[in-house]
């Protein structure tokens, strides 16, 4: 059995549709944001991303208030967070560790000394009137990230991209305002929550690449546990800079799309913005340097009312925070040690994919990408493979196609089913040795998903599901089927080859899906030829 690229596409599209069921109904057919533009030929698009990732911590960046999501309004606020005069910032060690760990995972240069600065702007949910961030010397800079771009239905095969990371800095989040008609209601629970801002160089060309980058970033941050990446809670927010230009000409004026809140949103927002800019320029207009917002319902970007002049943030060094020292190499002084943190980095997704494709496992690129993108599935795969000697490709295919189909049908996620991963290994072993066929394997999955605690082998025995492989039995089965379906036999004989499939289906049904269909096919052909 081989996993064809088409299988994967079908699986992924199916899975995506399940995930976005509601969206799907609203927008049919679901749009794919591909390099439609490339066929246009003349325009080239350039995309750069800025990501705000909330650091996974118990307390805020500079205060001891909780960061718990959905706490009662204004409950996670310390005196410092509402800028009570006389309070001072005290840096959270965990945030420095998380920042350094993330920087190392993204191949950045960690600065042994970095500084904090004040960035001023006047807004009701920023009680101090400034945000503490790192502008002069950020925590880390000059990183790079390699990732695979593969969206079924758009890309026939995966391709590798590399994006450079300009800098990684620590900063505070602001509070949240709810806008009434004539006033704003301010909740400071989020004020002072620790963020890592990641600035990527504009090395990308379209929405799909941006979405793939964000997906890869999410897997990395979740593996090193520095960010929950729950985009629905605002724990990961993406801003995208988009511009278009003609080959050989300088870059065009860019627009910035703010606060995109989902991975598909990233792809959609960018592609719709590229298309908008192309239409604008083709009809003689000019692109303005402006901030736009992504409207997921209408799938368009809309201009935001914005200041007409470049805002002056009046950056100044934060006088209340001395320089931040990180210990590394010969430099021993610092609040955290970068070398020790580097040792704690687990295997990153690119390495996992390489390992899955490598010797002993030998999966295809597509299989490796899909498994790595789905943490629960990967977990099952890895555990099942260590316990049994099974064909890894067969197992991967089984999990990616059959298991996911069953999950989707029951509206479940792989993580929802808490059974020994070895169950899946056992099923694949039965399948591999020919004791059961693929239909029975699916049936066993249904059993597991619906909560049957027995081992697969046991279920097969109890319910008599073993595959019928005995030649005589199969021949008898086929003969009976032919007798019962004289019409189909006649139409086959008169040249309608489709009738063969119908006959084969009848055989399968007659055997309660337990017959070895490969053998049946041969036998049936043989019998039909003799008639």
């Amino acid at each position, binding site marked *: 059995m081989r996993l064809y690229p088409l299988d994967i596409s079908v699986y992924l599209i199916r899975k995506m549709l399940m995930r976005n069921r509601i969206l799907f109904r609203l927008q049919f057919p679901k749009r794919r944001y591909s390099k439609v533009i490339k066929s246009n030929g003349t325009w080239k698009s350039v995309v750069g991303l800025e990501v705000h990732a909330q650091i996974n911590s118990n*307390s805020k960046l500079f205060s001891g208030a909780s960061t718990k999501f959905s706490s009662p309004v*204004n409950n996670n606020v310390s005196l410092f967070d509402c800028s009570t005069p006389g309070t001072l910032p005290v840096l959270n060690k965990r945030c420095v560790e998380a920042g350094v760990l993330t920087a190392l995972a993204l191949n950045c240069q960690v600065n042994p000394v970095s500084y904090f600065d004040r960035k001023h702007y006047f807004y009701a949910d920023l009680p101090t009137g400034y945000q503490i961030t790192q502008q002069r010397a950020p925590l880390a800079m000059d990183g790079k990230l390699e990732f695979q771009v593969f969206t079924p239905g758009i890309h026939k095969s995966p391709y590798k991209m590399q994006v450079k990371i300009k800098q990684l800095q620590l900063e505070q989040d602001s509070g949240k305002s709810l806008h009434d008609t004539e006033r704003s209601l301010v909740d400071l629970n989020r004020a002072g929550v620790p963020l890592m801002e990641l600035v990527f160089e504009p090395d990308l060309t379209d929405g799909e690449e941006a979405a793939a980058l964000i997906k890869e970033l999410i897997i990395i941050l979740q593996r090193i546990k520095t960010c929950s990446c729950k985009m629905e809670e605002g724990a990961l927010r993406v801003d995208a800079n988009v511009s278009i230009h003609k080959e050989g000409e300088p870059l065009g004026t860019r627009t910035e799309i703010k606060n995109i809140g989902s991975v598909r949103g990233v792809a959609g927002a960018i592609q719709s913005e590229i298309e908008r800019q192309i239409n604008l320029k083709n009809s003689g207009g000019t692109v303005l340097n402006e901030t736009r917002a992504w409207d997921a319902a209408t799938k368009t970007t809309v201009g935001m009312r914005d200041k007409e002049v470049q805002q002056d943030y009046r950056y100044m060094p934060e006088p209340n925070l001395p320089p931040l020292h990180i210990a590394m190499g010969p430099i021993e002084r610092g609040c955290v040690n970068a070398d020790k943190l580097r040792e704690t980095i687990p295997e990153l997704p690119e390495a996992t994919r390489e390992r899955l494709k490598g010797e002993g496992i030998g999966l295809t690129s597509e299989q490796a990408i899909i498994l790595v993108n789905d943490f629960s599935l990967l977990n099952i795969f890895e555990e099942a493979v260590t316990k049994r000697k099974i064909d890894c490709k067969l197992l991967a295919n089984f999990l990616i196609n059959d298991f996911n189909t069953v999950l989707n049908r029951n509206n479940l996620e792989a993580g929802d089913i808490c059974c020994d991963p070895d169950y899946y290994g056992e099923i694949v072993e039965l399948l591999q040795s020919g004791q059961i066929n693929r239909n029975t394997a699916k049936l066993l999955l249904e059993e597991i998903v619906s909560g049957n605690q027995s081992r697969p082998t046991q279920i097969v025995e109890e319910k008599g599901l073993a595959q019928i492989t005995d030649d005589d039995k199969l021949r008898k089965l086929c003969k009976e089927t032919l007798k019962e379906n004289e019409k189909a036999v006649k139409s086959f004989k008169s040249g309608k080859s489709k009738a063969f499939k119908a006959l084969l289906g009848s055989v399968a049904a007659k055997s309660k899906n337990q017959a070895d269909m490969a053998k049946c096919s041969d036998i049936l052909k043989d019998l039909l030829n003799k008639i």
Partner: protein
Amino acid sequence: MNYLRHVNLLSRRFCTSKRCIKISQTDVKHVPQKAVASKIELHKPPPKTEIDADTIALLERLSLVDCANKEGIRILEASIEFADYILQVDTDDIESLFTVLEDIPLQVREDKVTEGDCREDILKNAVVTEEEYFVAPPGNIPLEARENPLHEEK
């Protein structure tokens, strides 16, 4: 602000704490023992910075301080001139000092929840509240642009 941008961060970034301390000890001899006369020559006024009407109008909008008139321009230009005398001090190749604590490593705390949960206390300081929210005026309202950015007649 221009001179601030010439900060040479590199040299400091790679020096270890011990070396920094050593340098600062040897530098003690550069601290004058007696009062020294200022090197700023007040008879040499700095080049004049001219403020145009659009700039003062922008500043008025940002600050909401009534200053977009000729008197406002005069005061602002005089303030800039007063401050610009300091540019006579040659700061080339000298690293800016932002804090006297720059050689003292930043203290950090453990990631524990020790504060918060004091909503009543913090809301006491607010003039207007609604349920548990602070109430603020609606977001930044842009002032209408005027035909003439200066408003003398008023």
